[in-house]
Each structure stands twice: as structure tokens, then as C-alpha cells.
């Protein structure tokens, strides 16, 4: 290789520029990327390094450290990296590598490839990423409400929408409205069984935030504002969101970095947190024999490694399924499914690599011998389904609420589906 004249390729301020452009006042001290020792921990910790090309986090950081700005901005790693954070969990220099990637993506004039930026734009324009109108939303909810009334033989039961003063605002994924309306029934039943005070909003029903992955903080905040404004309007106490990994992390992290301290006072809860709490507090009763399956769990990076919701999913599965087996490695040391950081909306740009990365997860899943793999994240759910097909796993992929809903024991003093007594 020909020697490069460093003065020609190096931007000595690049490293500092990234530091300065990383969002957030409150956590600034934590995001110092200058302590890299080039020790190789990250390269070994990332299991995609040797699975696909251009995927060595150390080489990426090395380019950053040397100030090779042009090389970094054109590095495929920027868009291949799933920002799963495994590489730098025990980084001796505490380098926040996934945030470096995010900052490079969003703060240096790059545009997210594939449909990633389009999706974010759409979300900002209409309030959700799937162009669902308020009318369509209400229509779908009412349709599901009717079906449930039939199932329960009680026409007074409702799915609350825009109820002011409710305890919980529940935030769905728009594709549950558009493509998976059965999911609406699933979580509604859990709410009914637990007798929670809750509501949906006809204006904010999208948990996702692709500003997370485009790296554009102003846009991410705009997207989050839809929910924040609605919580304020409805006067709810907290927000519980459907099984979406990045959405959860966007709210929890975004509240700290895109807003001033105290500006967003509410707690954002992932559904697994809420469901585990219901079981633990005895608010719902479940019967695990109703799911006589061997079940395993995929730990989404955003909820588990970053969000710290480590035991909740396991706790739920141990209560609602007959046999739970863990993958190895698991919990905060899980492998990313390969679909994170916008890899799915980026489409063909990274598809080859996304599927190649999935092999790792496929092997992990198969090693458990499970019939069902649960993924408390919509993005992982799609990726796992792709893996399932690609590698002929013959496994079922489900959300946790699917199994939990199925295991619910209905109390005598509340709504009960017809035929519950025979179960």
C-alpha cells in the first residue's frame, strides 16, 4: 500500500468535532471517545467483525482517532454497524462507539440510505411512519373492540381512546394498527384482565423513532414531541409502549439528551416491564400449562443491553410457558439479531450483510431446541422471521404479550371471554 501523506488526509479536529456534535448537555462527561487504547476488545466483542466485510469497530475508531475524516464518512461501517453497543460494554477506555457511529451518521451531512430517512421524514410530516390517518386508526380500534365484545359477550367493554386523566397512555406500533390488528386484541385483553386505567391516543400511536438511527437529533426530538405533547394533553401519569426496542430506548435516552432536565417528567415503560410487574404484583394470574412449549428469548440490544430490562422477559416466560431455555450468550451479552440501527428500512443497501449476520442468531436459536422464540421488539421480530425463513429454522417467532395473553386466567369478578370456564 502506498504511504499516505498524513497532512493531506488528516483533519486534526475531527475527533473533537464528533465529541462536540454528540448531542446532550446532561451526559456530556460520559461521552469521551479520546481514551481509546486500540486494544482490540471491541473487535473481538463484535461478532460481526469476521462475519461481514468492513465491520471492524477498532479500525473504525482508529480512523476516527487519526482524524481520517473522509475515510470515516465514506466507511461502510457507519451504516453496517447495528449500534448494538456490545463492543464497548467493557471498553477500557469507555469509548461510546455506537454514539460515535450515530453522530457520524447524523451530524456530518450524510443522508441515511435506503428508506431510513424517508421513514423518519414521513413520521415528522404526519405523526406516524405509516401514514395512518386518525380516522383509520379509530376505525381499526372500533373494529377490534367489536370483535372483543363478541368474544366476551359484553357490549359494554371498550378500548379507551383519548381518555383524559387515565393512568397509562399505551403506545402501539403503527403496523399493529395496519397489519397486525390481532395484537390490539392481545394487549387490550391484558389491560382488561389487570383492570388498569389506560387509554390510547388517536394522535400519537407510533412508538418508533428513526431519528435514533439517522443520527439527526433535531428530527428525533420532533418525532418524540408527538408523544410528549399528547401525554401532556391527556394528563396521563406514564407511558407504556408496545414491544419495540429502539422506540423504548429513544424515549428513555432521548428524554435525557434531547430535552432539558425536568422538561419530560414522565416515566416511559416498555411493555415487558409493565407485564412482569402485573404478574409480580398479583394484578393478573397466569397458567403456564396453556403454553406447553419450549420457548427461548431473544434479548433486544435496546431494551436489554442499553435499557437494562434484563430479567423481566425471563420472568414473564418462566410464568407463562412450560419450559424456558436461554440462549448463550444471553442477557446484556446477547448478540444483536443483525437487524438493528435501521438495517431493515435501509433495505437492499445492507441486506446481504443483514442476512449474513442473522446466521449467528440462527445458530444460537437452533442450539436451544426451542419451538418458539420470543422477541420483545418489532424490529428483531421481523429480522428473526427473515432468519427463520432464510435458514429454515421452522421456529415460531412471537412477542411476549402473545404468550402472556394466552396464559391469562380470567377472574370471576370482571370481563371474561366466553368459554373461559371450559379451559
Amino acid at each position: 500500500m502506498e504511504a499516505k501523506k498524513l497532512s493531506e488526509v488528516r483533519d486534526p479536529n475531527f475527533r473533537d468535532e464528533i465529541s462536540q456534535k454528540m448531542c446532550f448537555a446532561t451526559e456530556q462527561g460520559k461521552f469521551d471517545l479520546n481514551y481509546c487504547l486500540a486494544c482490540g476488545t471491541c473487535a473481538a466483542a463484535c461478532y460481526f467483525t469476521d462475519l461481514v466485510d468492513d465491520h471492524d469497530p477498532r479500525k473504525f475508531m482508529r480512523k476516527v482517532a487519526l482524524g481520517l475524516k473522509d475515510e470515516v464518512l465514506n466507511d461502510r461501517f457507519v451504516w453496517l454497524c447495528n449500534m448494538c453497543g456490545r463492543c464497548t460494554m467493557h471498553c477500557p477506555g469507555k469509548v461510546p462507539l455506537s454514539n460515535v457511529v450515530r453522530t457520524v451518521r447524523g451530524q456530518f451531512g450524510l443522508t441515511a440510505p435506503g428508506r431510513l430517512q424517508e421513514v423518519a421524514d414521513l413520521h415528522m410530516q404526519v405523526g406516524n411512519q405509516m401514514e395512518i390517518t386518525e380516522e383509520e386508526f379509530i376505525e381499526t380500534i372500533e373494529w377490534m373492540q367489536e370483535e372483543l365484545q363478541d368474544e366476551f359477550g359484553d357490549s359494554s367493554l371498550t378500548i379507551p381512546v383519548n381518555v383524559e386523566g387515565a393512568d397509562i397512555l399505551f403506545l402501539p406500533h403503527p403496523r399493529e394498527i395496519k397489519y397486525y390488528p390481532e395484537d390490539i386484541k392481545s394487549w387490550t385483553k391484558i389491560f382488561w384482565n389487570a383492570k388498569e386505567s389506560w387509554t390510547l391516543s388517536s394522535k400519537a400511536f407510533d412508538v418508533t423513532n428513526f431519528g435514533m438511527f439517522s443520527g439527526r437529533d433535531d428530527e428525533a426530538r420532533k418525532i418524540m414531541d408527538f408523544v410528549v405533547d399528547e401525554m401532556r394533553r391527556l394528563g396521563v401519569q406514564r407511558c407504556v409502549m408496545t414491544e419495540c426496542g429502539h422506540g423504548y430506548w429513544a424515549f428513555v435516552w432521548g428524554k435525557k439528551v434531547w430535552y432539558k432536565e425536568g422538561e419530560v417528567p414522565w416515566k416511559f415503560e416498555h411493555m415487558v416491564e409493565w407485564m412482569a410487574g402485573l404478574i409480580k404484583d398479583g394484578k393478573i394470574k397466569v397458567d403456564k400449562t396453556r403454553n406447553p412449549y419450549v420457548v427461548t428469548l431473544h434479548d433486544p440490544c435496546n431494551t436489554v443491553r442499553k435499557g437494562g430490562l434484563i430479567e423481566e422477559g425471563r420472568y414473564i416466560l418462566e410464568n407463562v410457558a412450560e419450559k424456558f431455555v436461554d440462549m448463550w450468550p444471553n442477557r446484556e451479552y446477547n448478540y444483536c439479531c443483525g437487524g438493528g440501527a435501521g438495517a431493515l428500512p435501509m433495505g437492499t443497501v445492507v441486506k446481504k450483510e443483514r442476512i449474513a449476520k442473522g446466521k449467528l442468531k440462527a445458530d444460537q436459536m437452533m442450539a436451544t431446541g426451542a419451538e418458539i422464540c420470543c422477541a420483545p421488539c418489532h424490529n428483531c421480530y421481523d429480522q428473526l422471521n427473515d432468519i427463520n425463513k432464510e435458514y429454515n429454522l421452522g421456529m415460531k417467532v412471537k412477542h411476549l404479550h402473545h404468550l402472556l395473553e394466552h396464559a391469562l386466567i380470567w377472574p370471576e369478578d370482571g370481563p371474561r371471554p366466553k368459554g373461559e370456564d371450559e379451559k
Partner: protein
Amino acid sequence: MVVGGGIAGVQASLDLAEAGYYVRLVEASTAIGGAMAQLDKTFPTNDCSMCILSPKLVECDRHPNIEIITLANLIDLQGEAGNFKATVFQKPSYVFADRCVACGDCAAKCPVKIPDEFNEGLEVRKIIANKYPQAVPNTYAITHPEKCLYLTKGVQTGKPVCLLCEKACGKEAINWEDKEKTFTLDVGAVILAPGFDEFDPKTIKTLGYGTFKNVVTSIEFERILSASGPFQGHVVRLSDHQEAKKVAWIQCVGSRDRSIGCSYCSSVCCTYAIKEAMIAKEHGGEMDATIFFMDMRTYGKGFEAYYNRAQDETGIRFIRSRSFELGPGGSEHTVKIRYSDEGGEIKHEEFDLVVLSVGLRPSSKAMETAKQIGVDLNAHGFAATTTSAPVETSRPGVFVCGTFQSPMDIPTAVMQASAAASGAGTLLAEARGTLVKPEEPVAEMDVTGQEARIGVFVCHCGINIGSTVDVPSVVEYVKNAPNVVYAEENLYSCSSDTQDKIKEVILEHKLNRVVVASCTPRTHEPLFRATCASAGLSPFLFEMGNIREHCSWVHMKDKEAATVKAKGIVNRAVAKARLLESLQTVTIGVNKDALVIGGGIAGMNAALDLAGQGFKVSLVEKSDQLGGMARKIHVNLEGMDVGAYLNGLIGAVEANPNINVYTGAKITNASGYVGNFITTIDMGGQAKDIEHGAVIIAIGGKELKPSEYLYGQDDRVLTGLELEAELVEGTDRAKQAKNLVLINCVGSREPDRVYCSRICCTESVKNALKAKALNPDASVYVLYRDMRTYSFKEDYYEEARHKGVIFLRFDPAGKPVVSNAGGNLTVTVTDPILGETFVIDADLVGLAAATLPPDDSRDIGQLYKVCGDYDGGFFLEAHMKLRPVDFATDGVFVAGLAHGPKFIEESIAQARAAAARAATVLTKDLLVGGGAVAKVDKDKCSGCRICVTVCPYSAISFLEAENVAEVNEVLCKGCGTCAAACPSHAADHMGFRDEQLFAEIEAFLA
């Protein structure tokens, strides 16, 4: 008071006790020895750790001026320097120390097993136990009363539960009434030497410690390697105790890791991992050893050669990679490591055993003590000290040494310990000799010409000997031997009542020789000799036979043969006893003045400490002014203004009435020996003789003038010191430089100069930070091989990265190239991670040039009969581990750069250590020598001088006039080398004469 009985505490105690102070050594566990006692071997000499430590421990135990207080902690300190009231909390041991003879009968019966802390929990021990077989003091104790059946259930119910230990003890040594005690002692100074805590690798879950059985810590591995450890030194997997064929070491576990709040370097792990791998390979035959590391920090004296040997001769693999996690291997007995090599290739490898090289954390107990007694800690939790006062804590009169000051290796800890002793000694100079216990000698009987009347005492050692050897039959057997007039058996020959008995028998039966057949003379001979002396019998008329280690313990399964062998051993001892002579000791007076050679930081510090302790010092400097090498240093990383410090030091030296400074003085001759040297100096033609009792050599070193990287050809290429001068001065070109390139290892770690110069990595960091401070927009590059910013110097390496300094690694095979094309200075180097070669424009290039030994080290070495030729001209100390400032030649000490490259604070510590060691000589009025030493028969001597050359202590001189050799009995250590080497049988070793040895052999084989 010395707090902590590890090697540092032991050394400080011995130095102070020898210098005439009364020492209380407070130890938290049941025995002194600390972490060093747990180690198998020590680097870089691969000496057996226990073998070199144990004599120091025994010396500590027997020293009349040292009182060891075990199971105790310092909890409060009132008063002020020179006059403290120290409150000590002591846990009960439940054993009468004066009755326990460490026979182990109690432990044999005790039913309660707990993990053995000394063996890192790899083995179980009984709840009543001694800490380790060679423990000092070797007293048993119940260390976990909450688990003792009697102390819990028995005491609660008032019933005689268990009590098996009490029943087993033949000495009535169990003391159920023992209680916690808190008492206050008057002490003048406190030295903290509490040691370190091992980093707990469970903190880093991915390393699998606790998950995988075959992942162990390095200290556990020391116990695995130890012949006295749980696996008798076999390197085995813990999962199935099968031989481990592939072993890996993972470095920096709990060190250099910001993610867990341990960002400093633990200083010792790189070299100890090499040592463990080397020894393991020795033990394990075909074993494959691999060390995963970031930077190989073999910065100490002799370490780089050791590292080279490990790579080139021992075949240890070194992989530069920090691994993230250990995973299950293909079998349940293996562990898999996934790692990335430097070029980014991912590899997987399975190992039978993975050793985590755990770092040194500050002792949590000591942090608590520090808080209680008002001693400040630094940001990492270690005792805060400064460059100029490296062993002084924030509280006057409280000193610190060893790993509570910073992570350090054993020699540095020993050095600091002596330095702390010097600090305490200086503080308490007026009280010297006031509290020590004088010995009262008993007049010695003259037995010359008497026929031998031998008394023999055969020991049962509880059941240790008695259950294997038929002791009564041995007694019967020996009774009939010629000259034996008395023989008896003892349950414990070493117990204090038996000492009284032996004394009585000597007097009653007019014995003139005594034989004890029991255990090892290494620990017990001094005791029995003292007993003989107390009865007026020369201690040289005593002989020992070891029927325990050499007999009962190794022949436990064959009692008859053991008894036969025991008879042989006793017969041998008796045969020698017949021929024993009452040897004469000699005494010489001591000149109480000191000579310090070299007027740099080390020399001046040594002189000031000695002067502070009341000794007259002659300080000889060959140049015209004091200051030495430090005159070229302006600042250090810790922010010391070196110039101001130096001026202060010079002022203090010149104003001190006890110090005579001779500048422009060259040493032309030296003669004499410990206690009585005469050194001749020449000051511009004027000669002067200086008489002194001890000498400290502190003649400094110098910076290499490089012969590569265009040094001397392009004036923009400077050495580290030259660059520092420009940066401090702020020259125009230093201010305007946009690109500075610093190159490390210039002239060090090369085939013709193997050693690492220790300080240059830090020097480059210092210059890089200075350059950044001068011009924050400058691009500063440091090209290095391994960054060796050990201990807290790592903080500055971090700071430099933080400030944007670029660090680029290179291999010796791909050294950077400095070129000047048409006036354009460039440096070409390849980044090993990206595999890309970069050309850097350079305005200034700084070369971290090697530190060289002084020019005159060989000459000075020859004058004082010490080795001044190690590693190309550094002085070689008596022992790299435990005698870092002594020479094998008594009365001569070394300090500073002349001993090897080191930082200012290390030079200061070593200088003060040398002062402490010199004080142990100068304190004495008389030096005692002779006894079991060599003698040369002048009539037989042929004058061949072989003995003069082989003597390791320079104790033999050649008398030109008579053409014969003569042994200086004071200097002779009685090693016997000369006696073995002498072709004319002129050199003879008293107490080990040929006829004595032959008689022994014949008697044993009879």
C-alpha cells in the same frame, strides 16, 4: 509502629530494629509474610519466594527489638509526630502463644473445615490452623470463632461441645477465655505497610471467573504452581485435575480499565505473568503458554531480558490483544477465547486453563485505617504522597511503603520500606537506643582439651515424629554411642520448659557438646544455640539432626525404615559433635561517619537522611556543583518544579552541619572494609583521606546521544531532555511547531542495549503534554513500541490521549524512518491496526533516548569491590529482590540512576533506603564476625588466588608481601566456596571442616 507484616513491613521493622529502635509490628492475620509468602517464585531471577523470604521472617521473629502483634489493626492515632498514642484492636486467637509449639495435633482433630485463605480457597483447612507451614510466628489460632462448634453451640448451651482441639493439645495451649482487646501504645512514628487487595474479577462478568472452573486468578495460579500448594506444583485444570496442556494469561484484569474505575496500571502483572508462564512450562513439560496483553510493561531491572528469554528461549507466545470474553470450549474442561489480532483478524482458541492477571487494588482495610487516622488518599485510593516525599503521608510522622503507596514490585517495596525506616529513624533520632533490649551475655566455659561429653535430646514433635519414628528406641540406641553421657526424649524439644531442662542437664552432667534431633536447623538452630549459650556452653558446640523433614514426614508409610534412618541421622550428628570446636568470634570497632559519592538528587537525599539521624557525612561530587542529572530536568508530570526543589535540596545540604561537601573531587583510592573504610579523594591535585564506616554510591547516569533518526545531522531532531528544555523555555520553533513527532525506545530494548530505560515513555508523554500546553493546535505524535507508563503514570498517558496526542505503535522490524528531503523533515511509520503507512511532516522530532550508566561505574566498583558492570555499566545489587540497595560487599550501598534508570521519586526513595541500610551499620559500636567462617592456613597456601576470585563477598584479600590469602572474618559469610575451591586444602571452613564432614558421612552410613 509498623502496620502490616508483608515484605515491606518486615523490611522496615528490621531496618529500624537494627538501627536501635524498638518496633511493634502490627499484623492483621495470624502470621507475617504477606502476599510474598503466597508466591511460588519471584521475577526476574525465578528465586523461590518462600526460600528468600523465610529467613527475613525468622529474623523478625527472633529480633529482640521487634514485637510482633498478630490479629491486630491500628484503629486510632492521637498525638503528633514523635509522640503518638496508637490504639490497637486485637482479635482473640484462643491459643496461648507461649505454649503452642505448632505441632498441628489440634488441627488434626478439629472437625470444622473452611476454605484455606492462604491457598486462595483452592483447598480447605481446619478452623484451628496456622497460616502456612512456615508461618511466623508459627502459632495456631481459631480465626473464625463464629464457625467453631464450642465457641458457638458450646458456649450458648454451656455444654462441653466438641473440644477436640483442647483434648488433642498436649501443651494445654487452648485458651477459651481469650477475648478481643483494645490497647493503646506510645509510639514515635507509624509506618503503614498494609499491602493490597487482589482485584475481584467477578466484577467483569464476561471473563467467566466463577462461571468456568478453569478460569483462575494469578494468585490462585501461584498456589497451583507452589510445591506446597494444593496440587504439589502440578499445573492442572481445576475441573478434573488433569494436566493443563494449554494455558493462557489475560493481562490488565482490573487494571488500565476506566469502565470499572481502575484506570491505573498495576505495574507488576506483565512480569509476573511471564514468570508464571515460564515456571508453568518448567513444571508442565510440553505445555503451551500464551499471554494476551496490551503493552508489555517489563520496565524493571533485568525484566526486558527476561521478556526476551520468555519469547526466544522458553517459547511463550505473546499476543497483543485484549479479549472481551471467555466462552465455553468444545469440552466441559476447556475455555474458549475469541480475540482479534493487531491486524484485525478474528481468532478462536481453546485453553485448558485461563489465568486472569488480576491487578492490585488499594487495601480496603487500609483505606479505612487511613480515614480513621487522618491520612489522605489519592484519586485511586492509595496513600497520597509527593515526588519529593515519596514515603511521607499527609500526616506528619506517619509513613507509607509498599503497595499501599502505589502498585509496585517487591524490590521497590523493599526500597520504600527502608526509605520509610529512614524517615522514621530521622524523626526519632534522639530516641535511638533508648528502648532496645540489651542482651546479657553469660561467661563461656573453656572446654579446650576436654574429652567430649555429649547430651542428646530426641524430639517427638507431638506426633509429627513420634508417630512414625520409634523415638524411645532411638534414645536407647544413641545412649550406647561413644562419648554420649546423657540421652532423653522430649515431647517438644523446642518448648520453653525443655529449654530450661536442657540448660539444667548441661550443668548437671557437665556436658560439653549438645545434640538435638528434631526438625530443621533453618528455623530452630538459633534457639538451641541460644540455650547452650545461656548455660555457658559455646553455641558452636551444638549440633542438630533433622529427623522430621528429612525423615518422619517423608517416610510416614514405612515406620521401621524411618526409625533406622533416624538412628543414622542421630549417629551422624553425634559423630560431628565429637569433633566440634568452640569457635572464636571477633569484633571490630565501627567508624560512625558515612561517605556518599555523587551530589545529585540521590546522593543529597541520602546525605540529608544520614545527617538527620546524627551521622557525619562526607558528600563527594566530581563536578563543580551539586545537582547532577536533575539540572537538566525542569518539571515532572506530577507538577514538581525540579529546579526549585533542587535549589532547596542544595541549600539544605550546604547548611547542614553534619555534612561536609567536597565538589570537584575525584575518588582515587579506597581501602578497608565495613566499619573501617579509608577513601582518598583528589581535589585539583590536593589529596585527602576520608575515614568512614559505610559508603553510598550514587554517581548517577546520563542520557544517550543517539546515532539514528538523523540525530546530529538535522538540528530539528532532539533528545528528550533537549526537547524538554526547548518546550520549557518556549523557544520560537517549539512554539511554532505544528507537528511534533516523538519516537520512543531510542537506544533501549535493542540487541546491543537490551534493557528498558523505564522513564522514557513517561518522558515522551510529558513532552507531548508540554507541547500541547504550549500550542494546543499542534499535532503531537508519539511513536512507541509498548507504552510503559506504569502505576499512576498511566493517568498522564490518558491525559495525553484526552488532549489529542496521537499514539502510534511500531515494531522493531518496522522502525519509523526520519528523512530530510530538500529541507523537509518527515517521519514515515506504519499503523499496525489499519496496516497503512503514513508520512508525517515534522517540525521537531524528539527522541526518547536511553538512560546510560555513569562512565565511572566500573572504576568506582573496583575500588569498593562491588559489581559495577551489570547491563553495560549499572551497579548490581546484592539481591535483585530483597536487597535492592545493598551490595554483596558489606557496608557499601547504592542509590539512584547508577543502579538503573528510575524516576525522581524512586531515586529519592532508594537514596533514603540506602541511608537506612547504612544506618544499620553505623549505629553499631562493634561488628561481630568470625565463628563458622573460613580460614586460610598460611603454611599450606600456594598463593594461587583462586579463593580471592571465587569469594562472592570480597572477604578474601591477597597479602602480596607474604604471597598468601587472608580471610577477613568480619566480611566472611561462611558459604564455604573458598574451601571447596582451594587446590591446596589451605582454605578451611570452621564448623564444616573436612574431618568433621567425613566423620558425619561415615557415621550416617555405618
